[in-house]
């Protein structure tokens, strides 16, 4: 029994040393490596160290292509080195590896001095989340048309699971767009809040568009499971009573055509 416990401790020790090696922490794994052929033990260990760094760097490069362009190679490499150190992967899937990147950028100098960096990273992560979001059957105009007039005030609409609503005070999305088209990004600060809608279309494309304050409020109310009456109520300050219902129907028709609304789950 003691022998087994001792041996398991050895196995655990080797595995811990290996993980420390990959993360560039102090370790003595080299003492456990047999001498073989022309390749030195240190060179054999470097193969694993390099593979670890290259693999995780590749994930961040792929997931944050426009952020990479915004930063340039030197700063991107500095960001990756810092992120790998602060946030080793705690997930079995690499899809989530960069989830903490916006937080890292918002807290770590010199990146934190430029709010737009965390904003671009967050926007890129939301695009990825929309891409992988749960499937749901989209709502059709036929279903709404079949409703009785008395059903409408209590009608609760549902957003597609891929829908994300986000506001930025920086030109994060405009910069993302410019960089994607190989153009120079605009000034980082816009001095006004911009609202954005991100979603996955019925043909599986990830889309985004700018939305005004009114549509942003309406979509947030739907997200909060507020009914049609509550949605109408939010429009009373800015619109004449007789125009509210047609205006809302107009919004709903746009949302239906873009696959933003789904059947009740």
């Amino acid at each position, binding site marked *: 029994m003691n022998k087994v416990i001792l041996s398991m401790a050895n*196995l655990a020790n080797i595995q811990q040393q290996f993980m420390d090696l990959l993360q560039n922490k102090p370790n003595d794994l080299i003492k456990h490596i047999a001498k073989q052929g022309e390749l030195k033990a240190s060179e054999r260990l470097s193969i694993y160290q390099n593979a670890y760094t290259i693999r995780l760097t590749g994930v961040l490069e792929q997931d944050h292509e426009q952020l990479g362009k915004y930063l340039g190679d030197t700063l991107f490499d500095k960001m990756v080195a810092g992120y790998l150190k602060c946030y080793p992967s705690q997930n079995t899937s690499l899809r989530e590896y960069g989830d903490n990147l916006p937080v890292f950028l918002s807290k770590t100098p010199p990146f934190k001095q430029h709010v737009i960096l965390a904003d671009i990273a967050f926007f890129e992560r939301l695009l990825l989340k929309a891409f992988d979001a749960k*499937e749901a059957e989209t709502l059709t105009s036929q279903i709404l048309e079949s409703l009785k007039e008395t059903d409408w005030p209590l009608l609760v609409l549902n957003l597609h699971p891929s829908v994300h609503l986000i506001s930025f005070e920086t030109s994060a999305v405009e910069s993302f767009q410019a960089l994607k088209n190989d153009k120079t990004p605009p000034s980082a600060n816009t001095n006004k809040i911009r609202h954005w809608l991100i979603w996955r279309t019925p043909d599986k494309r990830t889309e985004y568009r700018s939305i005004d304050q009114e549509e942003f409020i309406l979509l947030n109310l739907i997200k909060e499971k507020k009914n049609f009456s509550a949605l109408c109520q939010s429009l009373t300050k800015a619109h004449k009573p007789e125009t509210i219902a047609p205006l809302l129907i107009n919004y709903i028709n746009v949302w239906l055509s873009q696959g933003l609304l789904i059947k009740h789950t």
Partner: protein
Amino acid sequence: MHPFLGFGLGLRSSHFEEIITTKPDIDWFEIISENYMVEGGKPWYYLEKIRADYPIVMHGVSMSIGSVEPLNLQYLDKLKQLAHKVEPKWISDHLCFTSVGGINSHDLLPMPYTQEALTHLSARITQVQEYLGREMIFENVSSYLTYKESQMPEWIFLAELSKSTGCKFLMDVNNVYVSARNHDFDPMEYLNAIPHTSIAQIHLAGHQDFGTHVIDTHDEDVPNPVWDLFRQYATSLGPTSTMIERDGNIPPLSSLLNELSYAKSLVGDIWFNEQGNIKHG
């Protein structure tokens, strides 16, 4: 127990559209389990269509069967749910450890080949199979180092594991070649030491040769030494589900289909009679 599915390919997203529109002559596909542990989106959309026409097997990279930390039950639950949806012919992962203390290396790190590691792995394999309620298949990994603690060669370790658990193997012939070059052993000694009845599947892949060592990259065409090894192995192995596994530098589907045809032609006279039926005995 594991049927001969024929000759398959690793399913990669860049080929999704071509597969559903052209329905190429491929016997089956292998998916990377972790790529489908998401709720929806494009990968699922295509997988649903593809699995209507082709048998699917699942291949994971994150089970960390060799790790000394407790089994990741959250991961196993996801795997179970995935298997329920995909209905694969079988599920495989790797004989290695990938995570330590909740941190994932996303690499297939080699085990020391000790009696204690054997005992540990045997218990873990039994535990996982019981939890999943099905048999698992495990793949040999490439390696670049040998631990001083190792008490036996890798092939004896695998043969012993087969004896103690009855587990089946996914034999990656490229990985055997890569490790044979890196550790200077005879790859056929390795392949012949493992009971042929325990081989459920074969992977064929490419690597990068640096002269002093070889790195398993799976991002090149299958090179001649791996083809040669496959043909030699096939002679004694008998018909076994075989596929090309390409993980990086993904070429057009037509290029992989050519490699698959070549794999078939290499073993055609060994595994099949003149009518194209499987030879028995």
